[in-house]
């Protein structure tokens, strides 16, 4: 059930209507209903994997209860280890086992030892990387004493399976989302709901219009790099950067919007990342729920920057490599993570990796001139990284880059120029709401103008967008 489809529209209208109008305004009823709706939503993809979510939820709920009553340090550590083993075990078995097995066999074969890889060939369950990280955040926070374990199983199961963000995030923290399931949500908030609709509209613009229109170009360009002009290949890398941004940020926004309509507030996952002035800022604006997850649950526990620069550097690289690996069981993702890590390290060593905290050109019409080289350089590094991210393997990425670094790189692209207009439109609109929590709010415009703008956006998305065909890229992660 894809967000930009009639099926989801019907599903959500039914859920929304029943949730606010027909159910008793009690937390337990509403949570139970959301849990059933979430399981229906997931089962629509593949009911066979529903058991995995239920199992993962059950283990972490039980571990949480156990941590609440366990007194000894050993018992608590054992319980916590159980949660780690189950969640990372599921992820490892379904997502990484075949990759590591194959890589090991290749390693042996390069040493002259012939070995057949042991392969499970299991289908990757949709969203497993997202919900396992979400349930893990709960176990870790309870283990650390940062939150009390919940005694409400329905609230907990609904928190894990909450359908707007179940299959592609944002990866919510238990500390943010679980309390929202544990409190009464009696009153409907019209202002929040209207903001939710704005997020959905902008999310559809990003996904159905920008990402899916670029997908066609990207597929063609990446299919045979050796036959393409250098500048077309450069354009293809840029297109993919905006495709994945539109795809993933679009999903996150629709998830936030639908959650708002149900009275929930999910975290911001993307904040105009392509206006970032350095790679550190990029990671504070791109997939924020994942980067902060790694910061809080990997980087800081490893020692963060408390034990000197070299250990901090090691910790930074571990986080970037894990972040790459999280995206997929392929060396291309690991290389992509390493590239970002290497681009971040100089900033980190010079202690300037947080100099760009805060808004982008607040109160100004255009970006400040001194910011432009940083924005351009960051975009260049990120775009080169996308080539590895999109390539089928490292050989494909190498072939792509070599073909791109051809004298024809300096000529105007002779084909595939159809996506430039969408990117330009996206950048202009993104610039307008660059520092806003809610996009396309346009508070300075009179209502009539705002409505005209929304109607125009709707018409554009409807007539030029793609519905119900192109899956979200991040589903595969």
């Amino acid at each position, binding site marked *: 059930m894809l967000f930009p489809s009639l099926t989801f529209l019907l599903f959500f209208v039914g859920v929304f209507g029943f949730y606010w109008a027909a159910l008793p305004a009690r937390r337990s009823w509403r949570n139970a209903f959301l849990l059933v709706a979430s399981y229906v939503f997931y089962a629509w993809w593949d009911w066979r994997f529903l058991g995995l979510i239920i199992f993962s939820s059950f283990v972490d709920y039980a571990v949480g209860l156990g941590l609440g009553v366990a007194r000894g340090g050993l018992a608590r550590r054992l319980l916590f280890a159980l949660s780690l083993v189950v969640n990372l075990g599921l992820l490892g078995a379904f997502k990484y086992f075949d990759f590591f097995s194959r890589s090991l066999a290749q390693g042996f074969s390069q040493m002259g030892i012939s070995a057949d890889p042991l392969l499970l060939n299991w289908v990757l369950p949709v969203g497993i990387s997202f919900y396992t990280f979400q349930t893990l955040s709960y176990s870790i926070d309870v283990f650390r004493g940062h939150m009390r374990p919940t005694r409400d199983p329905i609230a907990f199961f609904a928190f894990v399976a909450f359908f707007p963000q179940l299959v592609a995030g944002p990866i919510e923290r238990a500390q943010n989302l679980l309390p929202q399931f544990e409190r009464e949500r009696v009153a*409907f908030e019209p202002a929040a*709901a209207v903001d939710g*609709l704005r997020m959905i509209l902008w999310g559809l613009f990003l996904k159905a219009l920008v990402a899916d229109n670029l997908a066609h170009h990207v597929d063609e360009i990446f299919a045979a790099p050796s036959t393409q002009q250098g500048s077309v290949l450069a354009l293809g890398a840029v297109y993919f950067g905006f495709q994945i941004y539109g795809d993933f940020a679009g999903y996150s926004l629709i998830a936030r919007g639908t959650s708002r309509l149900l009275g929930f507030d999910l975290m911001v996952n993307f904040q105009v990342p392509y206006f970032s002035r350095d790679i550190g800022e990029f990671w504070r604006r791109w997939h924020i729920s994942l980067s902060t997850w790694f910061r809080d649950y990997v980087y800081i526990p490893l020692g963060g920057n408390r034990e000197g620069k070299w250990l901090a550097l090691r910790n930074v690289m571990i986080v970037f490599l894990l972040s790459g690996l999280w995206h997929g069981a392929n060396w291309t993702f690991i290389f992509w993570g390493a590239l970002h890590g290497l681009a971040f390290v100089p900033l980190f060593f010079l202690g300037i990796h947080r100099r760009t905290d805060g808004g982008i050109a607040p109160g100004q019409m255009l970006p400040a001139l001194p910011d432009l080289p940083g924005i351009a350089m960051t975009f260049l590094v990120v775009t080169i990284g996308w080539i590895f991210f999109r390539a089928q393997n490292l050989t494909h990425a190498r072939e792509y880059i070599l073909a791109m670094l051809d004298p024809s790189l300096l000529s105007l692209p002779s084909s595939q120029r159809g996506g430039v207009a969408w990117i330009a439109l996206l950048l202009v609109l993104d610039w307008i709401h660059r520092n806003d929590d809610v996009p396309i709010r346009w508070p300075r415009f009179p209502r009539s103008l705002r409505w005209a703008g929304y109607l125009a956006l709707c018409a554009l998305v*409807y*007539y*030029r967008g793609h519905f*119900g065909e192109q899956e979200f890229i991040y589903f595969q992660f």
Partner: protein
Amino acid sequence: MKRFLLKVGLFSSLLFAVLNVTGWLLIMTRRQGHAVENSQIYLSIDKARHEWDESMVYVFGDSVAHQMYPPEKTNDRINSLALVMPSTMAGQYLLLKRLAAANNLHGKKIVLILSPEGFSLDLSHSASYHYVLKPFFNEEFRPWEDPVFSKRVQHTPISMVSQWPIVKSSNWNPPGWLPYLSHEALVLGHGISPFSHHYLRKMEALALEAGASFSVLPTIQPESDRGRDYSDLRAAIHRFHLDDLFNEYFDAFHYFPNAAFRDGAHLRNREVLGDNVLGL
């Protein structure tokens, strides 16, 4: 909540009106091509409305035939009106009817170029809504609809809204879980559906009646398909006594290297085909 619903209702009504007016303008100004997928079918339909004095060969077919003989590149002799595979044989027949109504086809050659998979389709394909109902289920083609077509359309839910500007000018297709898709479960194979057989016969009869010849030829194939025997298709040809119609089909396969195809069926670069790959 009431106020919110009223606002949403008002906005939705305005949006419905705006989308319909926009869709209507797209149709009236023949700019649907800016909105819909594979809009070349509207070019072929538009071409079928015109009189062509010089054309000797009329090409019908699917999207691969469209690459082989692009409708945009009419030369004096060969005139392509290729559609896409989900347009089904009913779409091809209605298009031929439209062409015959505007042209004297006496002595002309009608060639249907279709992939081996294309004969198995009927209107239970999910994309048929977009490629058959939207372009053909309307007043212009109504006189040529027959009971077989009407019966299949009856099984298609919300068929009546297919001509609404908001639907017709968009890429929207009914969702795949709607029941019509399971009335006659479609397995894309190499056979010939009774639906295709019915319209193949009607195309043949129409061509004969107009004094034109009618033949069926294959699309280009990837090298890896060399050696396939297409036993399902051959068996169906015998079963439906279509041997005469298909007598050139299996000898006319042209193979190209796998790497030349972007998806196993369509070429990355059509220029390698030249202007007349089948020597029509």
